[in-house]
């Protein structure tokens, strides 16, 4: 039975409650998109903001810091190994001043104390110490405690060094000690240049001889002013240093060089010699040895190593995350959108891949790939590309399952949208929030795994003149009893990074999926 409804004329309509006021207001607020909404939610989360700020600071530090320091990862100084961290702002305080708190017997203490007496470069901080039960407590400056070194120079280098001394007025060369007066220790360091004073040796033990006032007795090599000096060079002295008068009333000069097979053996204050080497000879921008975060047991600058390691970690995390995002999103959307048999087969493949421990992938890759020094780097990237995208793929797949049967997709399909359009235009943007979140959460876990692998020395980037946070922590851990500070800053860095990424990632997740808050 068909019934036609004739057009009802307009004037026949009238309001039911014409006299009542309409209380509803028209919506005056601006419509807000999904992203803006998520951003507003994110900004409300204080922890996430703090996390984001810390991440930005760390990333900036990783970009800028290696440029600000003259040191490189390759830089190593054999004499400045395991130096304590030194911050110029903390020099007057008893920490972070580049000094090691020590408690020693008199012989050891005097060796360091005498360095300051000779050169004015105080190995014992401010020459301050306290004496208790014959044990001296003091703070030992890591840089100055290297003291003097014997160095072999050719005549030209020797002259250049003298010219530098005369020009700047900085004393680098100090009088040598005759070989017979040096402490003769059977093993350990023979020719220890720090002993410029009288000693006796008994077995491996060096005893210092004191005069009646309890002072050390210098035993510099010297020659009579009337003799020809060993080095055949008279103007060796810095102005004002004019030898001395010996007990027989004869004028004597100190000898500053002993001839040896290749040239001269001179005794230098290593600190000044280092400054001279870097400013005059190598000209590599290094002025004074001062290590903000200390040095490793190989003599590398921890500050430089840490931030170039961090730079690598960030680049690594980002590259892996982007590649995994691309692979995972493609794989996951294919599996999720088509479902059925396609999904089943693809799922089995990811099942197998995800069950392979990373360690196996890396070991086998390392043995099968040979790219010279770049092998480990290549292996690291390939290993993470190979299995890292699985999480991303399953997230994408889940999102596709959630959205693909919704009405709006059906509507679009009815209107004739192709698969590709449905996937990329209609479903994927909706799933993007979740996927981006899992991307952000994946970066720290990548960095963490990378740190673990380098810590375990399974991946070793030193062949490429690179270092990583893990390598540094391993170095500190190996020297835990003597130089734990090597690991201090890398460990702080790693902990901060993980913490801030966690806060940031959780904030992001809460912002994109408010319904998931607190669950995990």
């Amino acid at each position, binding site marked *: 039975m068909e019934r036609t409804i004739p057009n009802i004329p307009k004037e026949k309509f009238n309001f039911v409650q014409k006299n009542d006021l309409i209380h509803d207001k028209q919506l005056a607020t601006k419509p807000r998109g999904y992203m803006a909404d998520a951003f507003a939610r994110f900004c409300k989360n204080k922890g996430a903001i703090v996390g984001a700020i810390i991440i930005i600071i760390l990333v900036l530090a990783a970009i800028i810091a290696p440029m600000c320091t003259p040191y490189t990862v390759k830089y190593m100084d054999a004499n400045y190994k395991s130096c304590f961290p030194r911050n110029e702002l903390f020099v007057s305080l008893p920490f972070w001043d580049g000094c090691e708190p020590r408690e020693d017997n008199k012989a050891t203490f005097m060796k360091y104390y005498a360095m300051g007496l000779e050169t004015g470069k105080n190995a014992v901080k401010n020459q301050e110490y306290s004496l208790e039960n014959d044990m001296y407590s003091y703070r030992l400056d890591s840089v100055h405690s290297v003291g003097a070194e014997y160095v072999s120079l050719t005549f030209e280098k020797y002259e250049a060094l003298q010219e530098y001394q005369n020009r700047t007025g900085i004393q680098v060369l100090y009088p040598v000690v005759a070989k017979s007066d040096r402490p003769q220790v059977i093993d350990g360091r023979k020719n220890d240049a720090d002993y410029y004073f009288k000693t006796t040796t008994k077995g491996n033990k060096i005893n210092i001889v004191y005069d009646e006032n309890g002072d050390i007795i210098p035993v510099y090599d010297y020659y009579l002013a009337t003799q020809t000096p060993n080095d055949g060079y008279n103007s060796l002295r810095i102005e004002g240093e004019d030898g001395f008068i010996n007990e027989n009333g004869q004028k004597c000069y100190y000898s500053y060089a002993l001839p040896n097979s290749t040239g001269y053996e001179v005794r230098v204050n290593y600190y000044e010699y280092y400054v001279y080497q870097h400013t005059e000879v190598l000209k590599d921008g290094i002025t004074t040895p001062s290590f903000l975060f200390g040095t490793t047991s190989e003599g590398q600058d921890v500050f430089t190593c840490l931030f170039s390691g961090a730079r690598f970690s960030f680049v690594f995390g980002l590259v892996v995350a982007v590649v995994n995002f691309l692979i995972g999103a493609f794989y996951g959307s294919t599996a999720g959108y088509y479902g059925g048999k396609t999904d089943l087969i693809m799922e089995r493949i990811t099942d197998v891949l995800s069950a392979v421990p990373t360690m*196996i992938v890396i070991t086998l890759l390392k043995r099968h790939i040979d790219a010279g020094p770049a092998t480990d780097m290549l292996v690291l990237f390939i290993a993470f590309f190979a299995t890292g995208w699985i999480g991303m793929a399953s997230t994408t797949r889940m999102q596709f399952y959630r959205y693909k049967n919704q009405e709006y997709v059906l509507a679009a399909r009815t209107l004739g949208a192709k698969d590709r359009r449905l996937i990329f235009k209609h479903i994927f943007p909706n799933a993007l929030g979740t996927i981006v979140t899992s991307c952000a959460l994946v970066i720290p876990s990548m960095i963490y795994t990378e740190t*673990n692998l380098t810590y375990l020395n399974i991946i070793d980037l030193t062949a490429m003149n690179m270092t990583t946070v893990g390598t540094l922590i391993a170095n*500190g851990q190996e020297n835990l*009893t003597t130089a734990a500070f090597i690991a201090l800053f890398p*460990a702080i860095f790693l*902990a901060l990074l*993980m913490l801030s990424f966690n*806060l940031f990632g959780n904030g992001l997740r809460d912002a994109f999926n408010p319904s998931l808050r607190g*669950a*995990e």
Partner: protein
Amino acid sequence: MYMFKYVLKRLGLMIMTFSIIFVMCFVLIKMLPIVVSAATGDAADIMYAQLEARGYIMNVVRDPVAGTYTFDNVPVMIQLGNYLTRIFTEGDFGIGTSMVQFANQPVWDVFVEKLPPTILINIYSSLIGVPIGLGLGIFAALKKNKWQDQLINVVVILMISLPSLVFGLLVQYFLCFKLQWFPITMKSGYDYFTWDMFRSMLPAVLSLCLGSIAAYTRYTRAELTEVLTSEFMLLARTKGLTRSQATVRHALRNSMVPIFPMILGEFIGVLSGSLIIEQMFSIPGVGGLYLSAINSLDYDFFMLLSGFYTLVGLSAGIIVDISYGFIDPRIRMGAK
């Protein structure tokens, strides 16, 4: 019946996955250059004997006149067959080659010898971690949004974020080196149940269990708060139960449903140990063995341990899924 089928299906899938990984691993290893421990001066027949014993070649015949050797290469798939046959008939996983301390020792025996420290440390860490984690989680859930909860929350976030690498380092530096409460590395020897041994294991145990304490706390809190706000709790209270009665009898039991499988999974998972912690505290366990097998390219060890780690990882996953299925039939992971 449905459950039985489900378990069977999961088991089948697991075995399939494991076999694929195992075979791939085996083939890839056999394609690597062969490590022979004969010195250059040794007679050639030692080398050939070694190669034959390791299954690479067969039918070695020495030509007595020319002094040359002829042999047949064994195809990789036949090598795999031989390897599997030996495992199943004689329990023979091969012998150590390039690791000096285990050279010519049966791989399986060494592995079994290395197992106790790893397992013990993980059992201890579970024994400490589970009660503390659950306790803290329950406490936090009961005091939801009060300062105690906030404090626990902050601590949990810190603990979860702090990498075990950093945490192990802190424990080692402060507790072992500065305070000297524990030795820096684990005591060697086989007296696993003495006080000294336990003490030397404690730093590693502590470093391991902190992460899991945080995870348990977080999970328990989330589950329990959800249960506490559900309708049946209201019913229990209206029925006349006190708050503690209702919590213990109804909320706790219900929240244990998802927590228990998690504990089980974590327990199986930690069986494989933490390479980091084992390395840091010099624990003579499976992890250390694995690392040195990797570094010195001892193929038989690598094969066995890779299989072990893969199997542990797979079984942890499957046990969680299956126990979920048993405890809460609404959840059937992986079932359609």
